[in-house]
């Protein structure tokens, strides 16, 4: 792990307010984190620009990389020559590649991915209608699974430290292992059977006729349960490692109360790991959500993109959807790294993103 160690306190960071002349005369001062934050934000802003450019390029290439003649493939086997040529013209495939890219980039900058073939409306509008549905269940699920997973993993980790409560260790490992093995969409299907078909307590699928909150319970639950178990397993193992660290022995040496030792001295270190992981979990969860939405006929991005790929060959919508999903994961990664930096400034120096 690379760190920004400030070896000489007498050299203030670039963020220090001292004028160059005053620095030499001033007494050694404790360095502040201003410089580290500035470098971090600059580097991440640069990374974001590069990633966005790559995302634009990738979405551009989705059409160009279609094997054979993209226009024929998109128009379908039964299309007439005129229809193929229309598609070719609409996508600009009849122009040289640099011109295509230029037109595409010029459009994307204005949020214009072209019109959907099927709906005859801007592709971006169709995608943006679906985004709130996907984000709602994903964000609620991530918050829930982080809080529950941390609490569960920490509790079990502390209870089983140094091989205490062997039975709890075994039960926890078995149960969480089993539950986290169930694919999210299988769990979702099971939930529908139990809570909608057999017990009739919750709606089986989304429909404007049902209360939004009630309809969202099962999608969120199916996204949360498995993730909670995965997070809890990781947090438990990490807890065991942190409890062995010298600084935890130091805290015990100060004879601090248990609550302070675990909540104040252990938790921040645990959060660093948990959040690093949660970035990965969150982007993975976004993928699971796309599939799980199918179980509940949830009107989110998953349905839009699957319909566009499998049924309509609606490439403007595919491009817009992929761009938006990519953008969401970029933003998530950035937000998590900023939170990480607030919790543990050592991570600011890390070369990531």
């Amino acid at each position: 792990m690379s760190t920004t160690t400030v070896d000489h306190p007498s050299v203030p960071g670039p963020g220090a307010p001292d004028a160059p002349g005053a620095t030499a005369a001033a007494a050694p001062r404790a360095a502040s984190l201003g410089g580290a934050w500035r470098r971090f934000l600059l580097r991440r802003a640069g990374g974001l620009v590069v990633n966005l450019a790559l995302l634009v390029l990738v979405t551009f290439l989705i059409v160009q990389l279609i094997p054979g003649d993209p226009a024929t493939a998109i128009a379908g086997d039964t299309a007439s020559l005129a229809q193929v040529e229309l598609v070719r013209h609409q996508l600009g495939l009849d122009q040289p590649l640099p011109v295509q890219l230029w037109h595409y980039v010029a459009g994307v900058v204005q949020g214009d991915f072209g019109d959907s073939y099927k709906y005859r409306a801007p592709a971006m509008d169709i995608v943006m209608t679906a985004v709130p549905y996907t984000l709602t269940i994903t964000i609620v699920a991530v918050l829930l699974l982080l809080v529950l997973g941390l609490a569960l993993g920490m509790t079990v980790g502390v209870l089983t430290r140094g091989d205490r409560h062997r039975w709890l260790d075994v039960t926890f490992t078995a149960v969480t292992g089993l539950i986290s093995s169930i694919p999210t969409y299988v769990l979702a299907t099971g939930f529908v059977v139990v809570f909608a078909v057999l017990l009739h307590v919750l709606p089986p699928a989304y429909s404007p006729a049902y209360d939004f909150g009630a309809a969202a319970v099962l999608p969120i639950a199916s996204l949360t349960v498995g993730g909670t178990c995965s997070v809890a397993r990781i947090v438990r193992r990490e807890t065991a490692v942190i409890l062995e660290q010298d600084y935890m022995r130091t805290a015990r040496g100060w004879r601090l109360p248990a609550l302070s030792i675990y909540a104040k001295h252990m938790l921040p270190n645990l959060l660093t790991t948990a959040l690093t992981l949660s970035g990965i979990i969150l982007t993975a969860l976004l993928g699971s959500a796309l599939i799980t939405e199918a179980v509940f006929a949830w009107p989110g991005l998953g349905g839009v993109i699957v319909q566009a790929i499998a049924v309509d060959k609606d490439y403007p919508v595919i491009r817009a959807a992929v761009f938006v999903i990519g953008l969401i994961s970029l933003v998530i990664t950035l937000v998590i790294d900023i939170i990480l930096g607030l919790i543990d400034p050592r991570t600011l120096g890390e070369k990531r993103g």
Partner: protein
Amino acid sequence: MADTITAVRAATVDRPARPRAFAWNAGLVVGLAMFGLILVVAVVAPFVLGSQATGIGGTAGLGSTAEHPLGTDTLGRDMLARTLVATRATVLMALAATALSAVVGIALGIGVWLAPRRLREFGLRAIEFAVSYPTMLVAIIVAAILGQGMVQVVVAIAVANIAGFARLTANLAAKISTSEYVTTARLMGVPAHRVAVRHVLPNMAEPTLILIAGAFSGALVEISGLSFIGLGAQTPAFDWGTLLNDGLDRIVVNPVVIVGPAVALTFASLAALLVGDGLAAAANPRSNTTRARTTRAAGAPMLAVEEDAVLVADGISVRHGASGRPLVDDVSFTIRRGEVLGIVGESGSGKSLTASVVAKLLGEGLEASARRLELGGVDLLGRVPDRVLASRIGLVYQDPGTALNPAMVLGIQLSDVLRMRLRHSRRDALRLLTQGFRAVKLTDPEGRLRQYPHQLSGGMKQRAMIASAMSTKPDLLIADEPTTALDVTVQREVLTVLKRMNEESGTAVLFISHDLGVVRALCDRVLVMRNGAIVERIDDVAGLSPETVDHPYTKQLLAATPVVTVPSEQTEAHA
């Protein structure tokens, strides 16, 4: 990283010196058995049940019956047979995707690692970028380009997982090739291909196998997921994902039809998880430990105790709980008020264990006993309130780099004991700590409160640690190798601070070190320990010479140490 640390610990603590054996465990065996079963079904089922699974003509839409325990689908085909037959397609697709991503990813990783520096750094950045993309998004992009179908989803998932393998390979190769054992082998002139075969590859095998198990489980779930939403297997081909999707349409009428594919998917995913976890556990076996305890030994105290003794330790013994192996044997000493007692010895001599018994911080798995153990009249063998321990014993540890919590600013972590245990207000605690910082000559004491440990140098951290330990005005300061992790000039400055704190406050110090030179410069009396016992007691440190000591080990130590002097306060101030 987590597993490595555990492994290193397990390897260093109470382990006979022999090569690490592969430890089979129940999870791994069960997982492999489950996986074997899946493979058998994948091979056999299509031959035996093929006609039942695809033959049309049975009663459609049956629930669970004796003949069709999992019901029949809309075309009257037995769901149990269809689930079992679908095993082959599902497992083959997952295996193909895993193999493809592993081969390409490992090749890319090795290629990046072998590439010239510029290209390597660019390659590593590109891999990082690819890894940060959600697998499902990459798969969807590939599906959008290639269209839907079995081959297409295999390629999609394979492409999505390549980056993970490439990153692991590049990281492992970089880590192992710069590791000490590979450097040593190179320096000894071992040919490059032998280094690769004997050292690099075996050490890459374990993590790679674990990743393969994880990737297989992921590929199985993701491919079935893509089939489930209609991007994978197309009719008449079928896998578990399409079966589940077919069942979903009929879920309200005939929910039993989803049982087959749901159980099959979970079973296969669980098998992969058990194998992965089992491999990880086999690579890093955990040792059993018991809770630490300190008991009162039988027999009357034998030690003559001075009037002004702060600490009385009579007959401290420590043994390893599980094996009963003695680690410290009958160590007795006293420390008078204002006195600095040194304990010297090589690693494993039991000096730190002795200190941890006195501090009541004995490690897990150890059992200690003593005939008498008192600090300022408080019996440490009984139950002592934490508040009393916190105020009477101050502790300074070997490595200030690890002893301070990296995620907390100094002001909060170092003042916790004052607030929690000595009931000071937040403001008082911080004021006391600032005074302490000033006393150990830390520059800008108020600013230090807001800093994280990584912003300070090693010597500054250790001085902050001493300030915190002294902030409770303890009767006894236990310093366990406080200068070992520091370089020589910083050692001197820390020793000076310790000496001054001792002189100004009259706090007794128990100073542990392996370095007789350092101990000699600081301590009033010295105990020499070896193999868990005291072999020499030196009362006249000033007149110490090879002639004044009896034990050959002490003579050896003495011959091997240069003389270190701690400069007085005046010379330090001018320096």
